[in-house]
């Protein structure tokens, strides 16, 4: 499903279709998160990514004209497509080789993410994640919130229509 959605993103001419394929992919990834015992993150993925970000994408597409359809038959830059294919295949090859080689190399084990039968309750993952964020990485957390504020303010400034008199 994930792969289907991904391919759809890159193949669909119409941007709205591409956005919908993206949603498909994101849902798939959320499911995989759950499979990897990252429940909290799965939830966040759905809410933030699929919920907010894709919606934002769709807003912008609507704003700028829904009917801007890309012509995928032509490629103005020569050798872009073949080289892109070669690059991506190379990338896959390198990464797979790395994965295969690195199997079993990393042996350091951490404190363990809580499996349900080890801790009490189904929120074990959330609790542990919260503990990590708010104790060890609290500074990063604060900085990230500042980043969000700045991003919002900046974008608002950026997209204001310049008036002929003072801005």
């Amino acid at each position, binding site marked *: 499903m994930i792969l289907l959605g991904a391919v759809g993103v890159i193949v669909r001419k119409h941007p709205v279709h591409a956005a919908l394929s993206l949603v498909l992919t994101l849902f798939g990834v959320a499911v995989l998160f759950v499979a990897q015992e*990252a429940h909290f*993150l799965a939830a966040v993925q759905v809410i933030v990514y699929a919920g907010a970000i894709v919606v934002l994408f769709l807003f912008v597409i609507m704003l700028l004209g829904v009917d801007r359809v890309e012509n995928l038959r032509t490629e103005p830059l020569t050798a872009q497509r073949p080289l892109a294919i070669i690059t991506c295949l190379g990338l*896959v090859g390198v990464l797979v080789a790395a994965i295969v080689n690195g199997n079993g190399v990393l042996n350091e084990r951490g404190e363990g993410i809580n499996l349900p039968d080890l801790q009490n309750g189904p929120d074990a993952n959330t609790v542990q994640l919260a503990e990590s964020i708010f104790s060890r990485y609290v500074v990063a957390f604060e900085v990230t919130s500042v*980043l969000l504020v700045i991003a919002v303010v900046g*974008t608002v400034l950026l997209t204001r229509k310049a008036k002929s008199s003072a801005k």
Partner: protein
Amino acid sequence: MISLSLTPTSSWYLILSAVLFAIGTFGVLVRRNPLVMFMCIELMLNAVNLSFVTLARELNDINGQTIVFFVMVVAAAEVVVGLGIIVSIMRNRSAMTVDDLAELKG
């Protein structure tokens, strides 16, 4: 070596993440609509998140998930700013592609 049983080991997830990443790269290189290019970048970010989560589980380390958390936040901020830029550039032009933004030609 990858175990060929049908139960997915973490290697499978990693390979999936790699392929997802490659597809995202391909999309960035080939598509000309800026919005679609952005979406492909989101694909790449998701691929990375997936691999982090996988490894977090394999190594029993919560730090992987912490990283993913922060990546998501930053991705959100990035999308906001990026889309703002695209809006402000594309507002006045019609049927624009990334290739038209070639003012930095040397």
